């Protein structure tokens, strides 16, 4: 009878050991910061590979959007409030694309360090508000009292990273 108990104990120990190894490996992986998503400071620091398809995300810099008059080409910059990188995109932008808004761009970085985007997706945050409130906030921000958007936007970018 004892032998059966011993066998069961052996299996339980095996399972416990395996699970603990799995957990420690997973914790190690977490510390390694796996990422398929680059923020502007990483790209500016040259961490992103050139010529590979990557994803970059950040806020569109106020006043940086320049539209070509003849073609659909748009040039703009995105920022994470530490660094900014230029993005070029040819095509129709989503409705939600506007300055100060978070976006995700898919594309390759060329030699000049410009991200040539194949796709631009507008990211919307969890902050919903009526237009009047937004207007009031903007006015307040213009008056230099509240710093509403950047903080909310920052948090939106940070959540994209593990």
């Amino acid at each position, binding site marked *: 009878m004892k032998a059966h108990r011993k066998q069961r104990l052996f299996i339980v120990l095996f399972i416990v050991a395996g699970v603990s190894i799995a957990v420690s490996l997973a914790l190690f992986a977490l510390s390694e910061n*796996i*990422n*398929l*998503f680059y923020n502007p400071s990483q790209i500016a620091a040259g961490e992103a590979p050139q010529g590979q398809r990557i*994803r970059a995300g950040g806020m569109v810099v106020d006043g940086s959007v320049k539209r070509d008059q003849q073609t659909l080409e748009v040039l703009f910059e995105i920022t994470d409030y530490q660094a900014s990188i230029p993005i070029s995109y040819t095509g*129709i*932008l*989503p*409705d*939600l*694309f*506007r300055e100060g*808004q978070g976006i*995700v761009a898919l594309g390759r970085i060329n030699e000049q360090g410009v991200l040539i985007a194949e796709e*631009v*997706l*507008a*990211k*919307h*945050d*969890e*902050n*919903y*508000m*009526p*237009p*009047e*409130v*937004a*207007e009031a906030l903007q006015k307040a921000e213009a008056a230099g009292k509240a710093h509403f958007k950047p903080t*909310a936007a920052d948090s*939106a970018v940070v*959540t*994209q990273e*593990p």
Partner: protein
Amino acid sequence: MKVWFYRLGSPKWFYDIAGRCLPWLAWSALLLIAIGTVWGLVFAPADYQQGNSFRIMYIHVPTAFLAQSCYLMMAVAAVISLVWKMKLCDLVIVAAAPLGAAFTFLALFTGAVWGKPTWGTWWVWDARLTAMLILLFLYFGVIALQHAIQDKVASARATAVLILVGVVNIPIIKYSVEWWNTLHQPPSFKLTEKPAMPSEMWLPLLVMVLGFYCFFAAVLFMRTRNEILDRERRTKWVRELVQKVSSR
């Protein structure tokens, strides 16, 4: 304690209690959803960025909640079914699986409809969306296995094992796809924090979520009652019940 536990597991007892709760649940679901719909669609203000399209949130968020809650509930039922062999839990799982699949599908569908105006695309291979799609596949697997095994007891046990394997995998799947790619906004509702939207926007959402939960509970009770009648059709109480109804 044990008596109480076994009473809870008794199909007849559940049939009676569920029958008594049913009208309450159904009416509150109807009322809450009606209020929430009107409030959310007519009275809540438009969003400063998305305009009116954000209003689909009032369906999208409750369905997404339910899709996950339903799987969680099935997992709890699966544990009880495997450990204590409570028959009622098997019936609840049978009743819940198609509901969960339906809500997952609805969440995905409304998400796609919402994604078009906001993100500029119907579908993106984003973490939350992909995880939801996989959840839908898990539901399909559960339903398929349920129907593939003839023997009722074996079918329930096998399904319970599958659900539990899925539960272990759901966090893994969730984090895998999250690291892989993300675009979706963080949850609009957190239990621990004040929602990041004004009360005239989230109160109707709260009403809708409550309404959908009531609706889910009502449909689940109805379906479970049907399962009970089918499974217990040879017992005395079901026969008496049928006689009473047919003589009326």
